[in-house]
């Protein structure tokens, strides 16, 4: 996802692929998602979607700015690690904001569920937070530096929380047959896919150590690329709305409903 991931990936792939191809692949996976995000942010602004999803828009812009800053800092030193870790923390916070934005949009359409939903998601957050902290205590992990260890631990805890919240959101809307508008659904799906892969890769990274196995980094970068494509697909296509293909209700349904109503009126 960043120069750090790209560098780790290059180190791992060096003996396996011709150098030129390796460099192109690593840099492609680093740069292409950010270029696509820039295109997405521009089109969102033109279509006014930045007003509908301000947190997601902010997240996209932040990702682009963070990459640009890291790009201008080619040396993988302490300053770079600090910038990367700080950026990861801000990105994680913004992703929580995006999840809150999707939830708020869902409950705005279904006021009857606002209170139940709020209670449910608060409960889920508390349970996941306990699980995340418990996991961090059980599996402290290892890394090249204390800061990278903290970053990977944060990534794992945040991914667990976000994945749990997004899965609860999907289960909740599925049970109540709620319609998540396709824009919000796409954002949630992309974030969920990214959180699930990041949870797996950060767990592996913490077990093996950040620098010793760049394959998880490569998987994270490739997944992020897919997530950006998911966001583009859902946000740039016209919003799909459910509709009836049948123009008239069948007569037998009306008869049943009429009978039911007459029975109720006679009571």
């Amino acid at each position, binding site marked *: 996802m960043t120069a750090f991931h790209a560098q780790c990936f290059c180190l791992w792939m060096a003996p396996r692929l011709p150098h030129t191809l390796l460099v192109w692949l690593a840099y492609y996976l680093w740069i292409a998602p950010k270029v696509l995000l820039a295109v997405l942010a521009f089109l969102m602004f033109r279509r006014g979607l930045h007003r509908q999803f301000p947190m997601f828009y902010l997240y996209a812009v932040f990702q682009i700015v963070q990459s640009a800053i890291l790009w201008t800092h080619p040396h993988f030193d302490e300053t770079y690690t600090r910038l990367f870790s700080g950026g990861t923390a801000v990105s994680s916070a913004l992703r929580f904001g995006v999840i809150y934005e999707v939830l708020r949009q869902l409950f705005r359409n279904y006021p009857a569920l606002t209170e139940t939903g709020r209670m449910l998601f608060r409960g889920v957050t508390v349970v996941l937070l306990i699980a995340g902290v418990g996991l961090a205590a059980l599996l402290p992990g290892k890394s090249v530096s204390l800061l990278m260890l903290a970053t990977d631990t944060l990534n794992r805890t945040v991914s667990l929380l976000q994945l749990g919240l997004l899965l609860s959101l999907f289960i909740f809307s599925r049970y109540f047959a*709620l319609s998540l508008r396709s824009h919000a659904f796409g954002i949630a*799906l992309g974030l969920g896919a990214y959180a699930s892969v990041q949870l797996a890769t950060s767990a592996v990274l913490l*077990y093996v150590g950040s620098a010793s196995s760049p394959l998880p980094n490569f998987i994270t970068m490739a997944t992020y690329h897919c997530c950006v494509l998911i966001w583009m697909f859902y946000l740039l296509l016209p919003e799909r*709305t459910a*509709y009836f293909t049948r123009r008239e209700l069948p007569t037998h349904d009306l008869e049943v409903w009429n009978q039911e109503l007459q029975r109720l009126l006679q009571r």
Partner: protein
Amino acid sequence: MIITIIVVLIALLALSCLLWFAKAQASASKALENPAEHIRAVDVEAFRNLIDAGEEEFLRTNLPPAEFRKIQRERLSAAVEYVSCAAQNAAILVRVADAGRRSPDPATAEAAEKLVDNAVRIRLYALQAIPRLYLGMILPGSRISPASIAESYEQMTRQVVLLGCLQYPTRGVQAAL
């Protein structure tokens, strides 16, 4: 090592669930093409009778305890079926009314809004009532009163008729109103 493997497996399972949700969302609009096929009849009166406290008391005083427990289990099992049917119908009607909410006619949109609200409440009540009914089957003496489902279901039926009238005025449903 084992915990890491478990975390990776959980993550992969969650990813599969997300992909399944994406697939289900894509096919959700297809299910709307003929909602009537999926609606199941619910006899509200029979359901009221099954959960009526007076009826339960009558059976308790007139039947031997073993017989009462057996009958009460059967009654509650039937009540679970009714609640499940009502909840399933409510889920279909949420989708039906969701489409109506985007109607340019304010009256239709308002009727659809009310129907969504009520149908969602039925799903919520069902979520609370079904475990209670199962508990009642395990402990036949305990008091269970999911009567709010019956009332909400009746209200929802009225709203469906109203929405039908507003969306399809030429079908003559107004006569019933």
